[in-house]
Each structure stands twice: as structure tokens, then as C-alpha cells.
């Protein structure tokens, strides 16, 4: 699979080049935020609430000040106006309840891990030790943990109403209720007797991001002139700069945000965290650098969680399996506060429930609920894994009800490749796709018929190990996003991306991107795109990113947007650079611009190959500016800021065979085939890695992971001993392949791949387990499908069958 590019004529786009980043990363030549050591740094430690809901009746930090090496300690009251509030930039409805989210809790704490006070010391250990000296008393209040109980009349309120009266835990309600033919009930009624309705409740459990590098921030007021420099383990340095300026009141043009090497994000670092606000405000207040690196225990309680939805889903079809309608009722857990895009996450899913299927009716409703739990927000897939899980699970349930093969049911209802572009009942226009091709390839690799035969045999012989087959024919929307669309959804930002490319006097290329990689391999892939246009070696391109000082414009990395949107900016900037270079080259070669062709990094006079000028020579000429044509400015650089025309829609067919030990409930993945269509692949090796990682993430949710609270709001899964993440030893060797249906919404034909595996795989896994156990009366298994959950489903199924 791996190859090194030697053929100078070869287009680097499409080559499985090894990542430029890896030698440095693997040799530890890295610069994590926690590695940054500045003279005079104060280490911040945070006193966190041990209670889910309580009034703070006494709080005194002065004893901590007497501890060795302690320089300062603050409560919310001490900080006053400096105690910023975490903003939410996605008010999804006009009447959404948006309570304040103070960095340090004021009067009340609302989840275990809420920040109560901070200590600053010259030594990290001393800061941690001094937390013990803080005097704090709490008056416990009833904790609101269960979502359905939270929205009942008379429930304890997580937040008071704006006027101070007893509040409601409903953050917002977002209905999509079409009238007439598009209404679910009307569609069912119109079908008369020829209708089958299947209704299920699925629980999409709460998960954590689980990145390797914990969150960290260093805020230094010791920059040039008035500059405050902030290093943060973040996915969004550019967005962070804007938000920090808005929250702190510091002039945006005095803030420089750097995301140095960042060890994974998975959405968990798509955030403005309260700890970042505290570090900046206290650094500003004390005039010294402030550093905070969280422990894993802090991460578990205070970094945002994801998913956590109750999904009531109803599907109706004719008796021969033609879908006539879908109805989705969600209850989505916001947690205790709204982080930057918390309310919008379930609504990203709203668009995806109809998935790849044609249907005339679709209704959706979502109630966002406050509880005394860690806030939720985006985690890999953000709303789309939840939607994909529900629709792909209920397709299997409908197939069982109809006594149809689940793949046949899908084939009967999906959009065929001739029907693109296709506008779905949810209002999205899918540009391209070929579900038939991806499925055919996956079925071929999987050996569907042979596995079905083995399944029959095991059923007949009463084998304690049963075999199940799970299907997930998924699609997703990525490439967030057209700015106008985001505006229409009340999202307070755009979705454009920027690139500047500089041809330096020495012939090297500097590519400045607004994307912010944290493991994705942008340095390699972006070099490949630019090299394919500029005709220079991939290694001659240096990608500059994640520093608002060096790469001032960008919208960062999340939602599988970097290639789909950022790639367009690279292409356009590179083409503009060639355009400008051509004018200079024509002047140098004393010919007309029209007489030049640009081949393999050199301008050649058509019909006279001896007369040519390499790009590097043009760049040097632009630098010296000794002999530029009239009206041409010195330096050779070009930039582009691109707003995407639309989302892109990767899709694929994932097939999974699972052996379920019916005596112990343990599930073992026997084979997993993933055929993804992510459009044109810039680097298939990186695509492969993204698919593998996504699968591990999704399989983790399906089989292992799940945040658990007790009824008092204590986080039970507070360490990796209790919150289980699969390792390579727990996962099978994946069989992966691709079909290539280029996207037509961007000139590179690319889609996105970062989230695909995480979105596609949970229903494939659970469908396989349920398929194995259906003869035992099992129609659902709760995620994560732990041995005990599977065992209990078998017990309940057999009990029901008696």
C-alpha cells in the first residue's frame, strides 16, 4: 500500500504517501502544550465540585494562600468581572433557554466537576496540594439526572428562570412537523390497510472523546507589544481567538492563539473551555504566564461528553417494504450548561434520519434537556452517529417484521445512482452517490451467502455460539459548511476556509492553511494537493497551521470539513499563484502569457521546450524585483478564501459478522467489511487510517463505552478502568475498500472521511448481535452491548417467548 513518489511525472494526489508528520511524532520531537515552559509560570489547579447540585454556603480560599509556593487563589467573587461566561454560539430556536455558564461557579454548582475555585502556585504539585486547604461547604440540592424525570412538571430545576423564579429543564424544543402529505400520520392513513408500522425506543448512550493528550492551556501576557499568547490543546485556534476576545473583552488583535502539537480531539477539543477563560483572565490579572494541564480524572468530569439521546422512532412501510414515513422524537441531554454548540448537535442529526432512503413523509421533534451532568457537545460525528444508529437499527427491525432480508429492504428503498442529485425528505440535496456499487463490493468481500448458510447451520444445531450479520448502509453530511446554510440554522459563524501559498526566494513553498490538524495528516495531504498544481516535490512544501500569528485566517478542523472545504482553498490559491508566476515568466522568457504552458513545475514556451523557466526562478525574480513587468507587485504569493457550495455526502456499506456466545453474552467480531465512498482520495493511506480509527471509535460505542452516573449524579465511569476503550487487541483485522464517486460540490471531488467509521459502525455491530439472537426472542440490545446486557436480553427474550 505504501509507496514513495519517485516518478516526477506522477500526480501526487491519489498516492498513498507516508505521512510527513510521522517521523517527528514517532521520535518524540513534539511540542505539546504541556511541554511549554515559560519563566515565571504559575500553575493553576482547580477545586471542582464533588456534588452534582448544591448551593455553596461557605467558600474561603485564604488558607490555601498560606501553603508553600502558592501565589494566588480565587473564587468567582474574587474574580468579579474577570470570571467570564462560556458562550453558546448556536441558539437553535428563538425561545431557547440559555443560562449563564460562569467559569467559576457562582453560588451554586451544577455538576460533579463544576469549577469552584482556583489556586496558582509556582509548582504544579504545590498547586494541587493547596486545594485541600480551601474551606468549602455545600448544601446539597436534589440532583436532576434522568432526562424524562427532568422534563416532568415539578422537577427540580438545574437553572432558575431568568426572572429568578422556578425554572424548567427544557432548554428548547425543535419541531419539524410538515402539514399535509408530508405528515407521518397522514401518510400512514393514506396507505389504508397496506401498512406496517414499527416503533422502537433506542438509547444512544453518553460517551467521552478519549483523546490521548489531555486538555492543556498556557496563557502568557509576555508577548510582543500588548500581545497575549495562548497555547492550547485545541482543534479551533482561530475560533478560540474570536471567542476569547468576546468573552474577556481583550482586543482580538492582541490575542495570538497557537495550537501546537495536539494529541487527538474527536470533537472534544472543539470547544471554548472555562479553564481556558480562567487561564487567560488570571494571566492578564497577575501579569504572569498561567499554565493548566488537566489530569485524566478532570477530563472525565469536565471535558464535554457526547451523544446521550433517547430516540423514539417510528417507521411505516407498505407490506411489500416500501417506506412511507418516518417519525423521530428525541430527548437530548444538554448536561448542566450549554457549551459552544451543544444545542445544535441533535439537530445535525435531524437531517440524517431519512439517510439514503426515499420516503414521502418525515417528522422530527427534539427536546433539549438540562440535567446535573457534564455538558455535552460534539464528539466524532456529532448528531449523525445517533441518527444513523436509529435509522439503520429500525431498518433491520422493519425487515424482521416484514420477514424480508434486511439488505433487500434497503435496496428497495435507497436512492439509486441514476437519481442523483436527489433532494431528500429532510431537505438536503445529495449531489452524488452510488449505494449499489459500494454494497456490491462489500457483499463480495464479505461472503454474505456463505455466512447466512453458516448462521442457519448454527441455529439448527443449537450451537451455544450463534452467528449474526449486521448491515449499515450509511451516509453522512460533512464539509461543514456553506456559510449561508449555517446562518439559516442560527449558527453564529461561517463555514469558509482560507489558504495562502508563498513561493519563497529559495524555491521552497510555504502553504498556510486555516485548518488545524491534530492527528489527521494535513501536512502531507495539503502538500500533495499543492504539489499536484505547482509541480514541486511534496517535500518542498511546508504546511503552516494552527497559529493565528502565522496563519491568521481559518475556521479550523471539525465535522470532516478540512479537506472538503480547506482543500478547495488550497487548489484555488495554488492556481492563482501559477497565474501570477506565469506573467513574470512570460516577461522573463520574452513571450506572451498565452505562449506558455506550465508542466512539471516549469513554464515552457509552447513548441520550444528549450526555453523554460522553473517556478523557483520565477519566485527569485519576484523576490529581487529587479526585472518585473510593469504593474506586477514583488513577491510571489496568492491566497484564496472559499465558501463551499454545499455539504458533501460520503456513504458506504459496512457489513459485520459477530459470534455471540449465548452462555456468557460475549460478542466477538468475526469479520468486518467497510466499503466507503469518500470521493476522490488525496492520500489513500491516510484515508485507510481514518477509517480504521473511526471504526474503533464506533465499535467502542457499540460494545465497550458508556458514561454512567449514579442517581446522585456521581460519575461512575471516572477512569479508564471503568470507562472501557477498546485497544487493537480487542478489534479484528478490518477488511476495507473504497468505491470512488466524486463529489460534485467541490472541484477536487473530495468528500470527508474523519467521522465515517464512527457513524457507520455502531448499527452494524448491534444489528449483527440482534440478528444472531432474534430466534431467541431478542429484538434489541442496549449499547454498549456488554456481556451482561446481551445475557439479559437473551433472558428477557426467552422469558417473553415462553
Amino acid at each position: 500500500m505504501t509507496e514513495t513518489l519517485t516518478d516526477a511525472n506522477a500526480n501526487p494526489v491519489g498516492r498513498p504517501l507516508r505521512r510527513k508528520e510521522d517521523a517527528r511524532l514517532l521520535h518524540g520531537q513534539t511540542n505539546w502544550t504541556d511541554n511549554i515552559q515559560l519563566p515565571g509560570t504559575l500553575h493553576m489547579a482547580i477545586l471542582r465540585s464533588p456534588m452534582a447540585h448544591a448551593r455553596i454556603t461557605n467558600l474561603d480560599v485564604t488558607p490555601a494562600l498560606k501553603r508553600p509556593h502558592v501565589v494566588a487563589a480565587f473564587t468567582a467573587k474574587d474574580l468579579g468581572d474577570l470570571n467570564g461566561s462560556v458562550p453558546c454560539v448556536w441558539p437553535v430556536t428563538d425561545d431557547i433557554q440559555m443560562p449563564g455558564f460562569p467559569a467559576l461557579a457562582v453560588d451554586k454548582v451544577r455538576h460533579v466537576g463544576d469549577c469552584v475555585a482556583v489556586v496558582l502556585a509556582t509548582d504544579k504539585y504545590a498547586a494541587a496540594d493547596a486545594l485541600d486547604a480551601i474551606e468549602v461547604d455545600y448544601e446539597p440540592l436534589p440532583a436532576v439526572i434522568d432526562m424524562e424525570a427532568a422534563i416532568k412538571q415539578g422537577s427540580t430545576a438545574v437553572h432558575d428562570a431568568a426572572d429568578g423564579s422556578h425554572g424548567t429543564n427544557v432548554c428548547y424544543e425543535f419541531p419539524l412537523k410538515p402539514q399535509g402529505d408530508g405528515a407521518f400520520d397522514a401518510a400512514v392513513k393514506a396507505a389504508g390497510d397496506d401498512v406496517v408500522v414499527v416503533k422502537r425506543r433506542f438509547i444512544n448512550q453518553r460517551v467521552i472523546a478519549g483523546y490521548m493528550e489531555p486538555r492543556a492551556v498556557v496563557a502568557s501576557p509576555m508577548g510582543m507589544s500588548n500581545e497575549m499568547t495562548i497555547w492550547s490543546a485545541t482543534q479551533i485556534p482561530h475560533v478560540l481567538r474570536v471567542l476569547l476576545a468576546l468573552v474577556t473583552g481583550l482586543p482580538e488583535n492582541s490575542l495570538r492563539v497557537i495550537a501546537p502539537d495536539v494529541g487527538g480531539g474527536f470533537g472534544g477539543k472543539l470547544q471554548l473551555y472555562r479553564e481556558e477563560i480562567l487561564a487567560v483572565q488570571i494571566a492578564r490579572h497577575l501579569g504572569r504566564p498561567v499554565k493548566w494541564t488537566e489530569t485524566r480524572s478532570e477530563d472525565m468530569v469536565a471535558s464535554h461528553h457526547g451523544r446521550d439521546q433517547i430516540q423514539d422512532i417510528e417507521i411505516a412501510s407498505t407490506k411489500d417494504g416500501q417506506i412511507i414515513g418516518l417519525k423521530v422524537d428525541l430527548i437530548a441531554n444538554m448536561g448542566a450548561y450549554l457549551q459552544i454548540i451543544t444545542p445544535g448537535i441533535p439537530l445535525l442529526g435531524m437531517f440524517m434520519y431519512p439517510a439514503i432512503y426515499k420516503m414521502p413523509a418525515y417528522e422530527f421533534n427534539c427536546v433539549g434537556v438540562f440535567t446535573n451532568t457534564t455538558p455535552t457537545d460534539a464528539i466524532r460525528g456529532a448528531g449523525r452517529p445517533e441518527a444513523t444508529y436509529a435509522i439503520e437499527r429500525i431498518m433491520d427491525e422493519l425487515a424482521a417484521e416484514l420477514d424480508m432480508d434486511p439488505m433487500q429492504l434497503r435496496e428497495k428503498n435507497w436512492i439509486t445512482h441514476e437519481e442523483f442529485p436527489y433532494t431528500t425528505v429532510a431537505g438536503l440535496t445529495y449531489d452524488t452517490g452510488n449505494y449499489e456499487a459500494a454494497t456490491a463490493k462489500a457483499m463480495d468481500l464479505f461472503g454474505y451467502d456463505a455466512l447466512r448458510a453458516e448462521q442457519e447451520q448454527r441455529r439448527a444445531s443449537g450451537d451455544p455460539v450463534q452467528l449474526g450479520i449486521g448491515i449499515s448502509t450509511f451516509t453522512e453530511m460533512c464539509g461543514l459548511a456553506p456559510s449561508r446554510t449555517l446562518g439559516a440554522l442560527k449558527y453564529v459563524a461561517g463555514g469558509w476556509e482560507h489558504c495562502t501559498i508563498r513561493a519563497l526566494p529559495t524555491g521552497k513553498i510555504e502553504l498556510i492553511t486555516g485548518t488545524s490538524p491534530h492527528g489527521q495528516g494535513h501536512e502531507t495531504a495539503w502538500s500533495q494537493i499543492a504539489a499536484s498544481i505547482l509541480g514541486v516535490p511534496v517535500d518542498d512544501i511546508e504546511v503552516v497551521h494552527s497559529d493565528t500569528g502565522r496563519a491568521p485566517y481559518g475556521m479550523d478542523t471539525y465535522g470532516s470539513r478540512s479537506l472538503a472545504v480547506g482543500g478547495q482553498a488550497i487548489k484555488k490559491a495554488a492556481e492563482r499563484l501559477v497565474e501570477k508566476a506565469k506573467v513574470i515568466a512570460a516577461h522573463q522568457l520574452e513571450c506572451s502569457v498565452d505562449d506558455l504552458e506550465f508542466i512539471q513545475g516549469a513554464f515552457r514556451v509552447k513548441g520550444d521546450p528549450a526555453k523554460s523557466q522553473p517556478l523557483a526562478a520565477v519566485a527569485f525574480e519576484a523576490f529581487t524585483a529587479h526585472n518585473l513587468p510593469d504593474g506586477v507587485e514583488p513577491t510571489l504569493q496568492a491566497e484564496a478564501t472559499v465558501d463551499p457550495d454545499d455539504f458533501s455526502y460520503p456513504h458506504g456499506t459496512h457489513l459485520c459478522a459477530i459470534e455471540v456466545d449465548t452462555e456468557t453474552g460475549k460478542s466477538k467480531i468475526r469479520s468486518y467489511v467497510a466499503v466507503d465512498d469518500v470521493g476522490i482520495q488525496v492520500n489513500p493511506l491516510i484515508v485507510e487510517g481514518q477509517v480504521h480509527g473511526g471504526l474503533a471509535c464506533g465499535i467502542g460505542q457499540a460494545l465497550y463505552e458508556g458514561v454512567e452516573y449514579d442517581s446522585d449524579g456521581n460519575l461512575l465511569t471516572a477512569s479508564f478502568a471503568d470507562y472501557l476503550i477498546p485497544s487493537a487487541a480487542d478489534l479484528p483485522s478490518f477488511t476495507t475498500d473504497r468505491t470512488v464517486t466524486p463529489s460534485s460540490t467541490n472541484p477536487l471531488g473530495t468528500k470527508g472521511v474523519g467521522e465515517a467509521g464512527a457513524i457507520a459502525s455502531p448499527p452494524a455491530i448491534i444489528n449483527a448481535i440482534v440478528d444472531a439472537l432474534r430466534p431467541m426472542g431478542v429484538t434489541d440490545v442496549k449499547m454498549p452491548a456488554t456481556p451482561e446486557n446481551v445475557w439479559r436480553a437473551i433472558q428477557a427474550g426467552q422469558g417473553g417467548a415462553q
Partner: protein
Amino acid sequence: MIPIAFDYVRPGTVDEAISALAAAGEDGKVISGGQSLMPVLRLRMAAPTTLVDIGSIAEMKGITDGGDHLVVGANATHYEVMNDALVKQHAPLLAQAAGTVADPAIRHRGTFGGSLAHADPAGDLPTVALALDATMVAKGPNGTREIAAKDFFVDYFTSALEPEEILVAVKVPKLGDGWSTHYEKFNRTAQAWATVGVAAAVKRQNGTITEARVALTNMGPSPVRASSVEAALAGAAATTDAIAAAAANAADGTRPTSDLHASAEFREHLAKVLTKRAVAQAAGV
């Protein structure tokens, strides 16, 4: 995840270590491989004022032949135990179980003695020690004493060691002819602790099980022998049905806990299934 400050000493002999422990008083704690203790310290679930690091004490290393038993130094790592020729020959159950402990990194640092002294009910090796009737050799200010495995594991994370005593070696009896063994571990991920584990040793003669030893992991505050299974197996035919019938008693007398990985009820169910499998595997049926 930052431990409380502590003093650290690294004695070179067992006697020096005992003196250091005595000097440390109540809040002294022995550390060897540190694979169990370090997380406890980082989570501030324990706050010893002095750590006595016995990791470099040469006399506690190595595995030797003691005639009818093996002497396994408490400092032998899991990796050494699982790969040792003597252990593989005379106590294959121990070699097999040591190979299921956590992951390779931990097996290279964690020690046999540390695992026993830690007395984690979810630990695999205490169960094996109990099944094999191993004897613990402990040394303290008053000299050396031997403690049978059945008396050594007292309660959750509590062994029979006195505060100033150090577990220096473990005597593991050789099983002898006719015996075969199996450790059946059930966990949720490859590196996780046992949800339930079963150590089985079976002596077979002409299609009959003449003697059996079965011990259970994580079915109570300490590893426990499944006595009623052992009794039912003695003299039973080495058949699937007879083994299944005996294994149905596996949860008798156990006191499993409920936690995030399994309820007590499910553990009791697992104990029966896994005992059946462990005994069948050991008996070769």
C-alpha cells in the same frame, strides 16, 4: 492524578527493607513493580508518607527448584514467571495465568509477589496460588514465617502480612503426574481485570477425575475455592455432562460484588459457565 508528597527509600537487602518499613511506621508502604500502587497513589486513594522500594533486592528475584516445589522470588515479574521453564513444566497453570495479566508493558514491570500482597479480588494470581496450595514466605522484624494461601488472602485488598512484614518468596508445589490445568479468564477488554476467572486443576485416571481443585477470581472479597464443585468432581467421569453437573455448584458459598462490569447475579452465572469450561479444558474433554 498527582500523588501526595512522600519519602522514598530503596534498600538493597530484605533486612534493610524491614528496618525501613519499621522506621516509616504506620504510613510506610512497600512498592515493587508499582503497577497497582502507582494508580492508587495518583488517585490519592492512599497517601503513604514513605515508599520502600524493594525492586532492587537481589535475594527476592529468580525462580528456583526446591524439590517438591518451586521457589518463586516475590520480585519475579509476570513476564519472567510466564516464560520460566520450571514454572511451565511444574506449574503451567501459573505460567498461563501470568500471561493473562493486563498487557505486555505491565507484565514486564509488575511482580508476582506484588500481585499477591496487593490481594485484589480481581487479581488472577491469588486465585492460582490458592488453587495450587502455594505457601507464602514472609519476613519481618521477628524473622521468617510461612503462610498458606488459604490463610493469606483475608479481605478486599487485605492480606495476612503484618505492616512490617515483606512477602519475599512463594513456594509453589509441583503438581506431579496425572494433573492438568487451565485458567479461564473472562474480561471485557484484553487488558482488563477478570470479571470472573476460574483456575482448574484436574487429576485424571482412566476416564475418571480422581481429584480436582477449582478456585474462583472476583467472586468475593478474596479468591475462593469452589469446594462443592471439587467434591462433586472427585470420582466423577471425565465427561461433559458430569463436569457440567458439578460446575452448576460453582457459585455456592461465593459473595460476588456488583460493579460496572457485572452484577453479582451475572457473576454467579458466569462462575458456573466458566467453571464448566475451565474443568473441561483441564480434563481434556
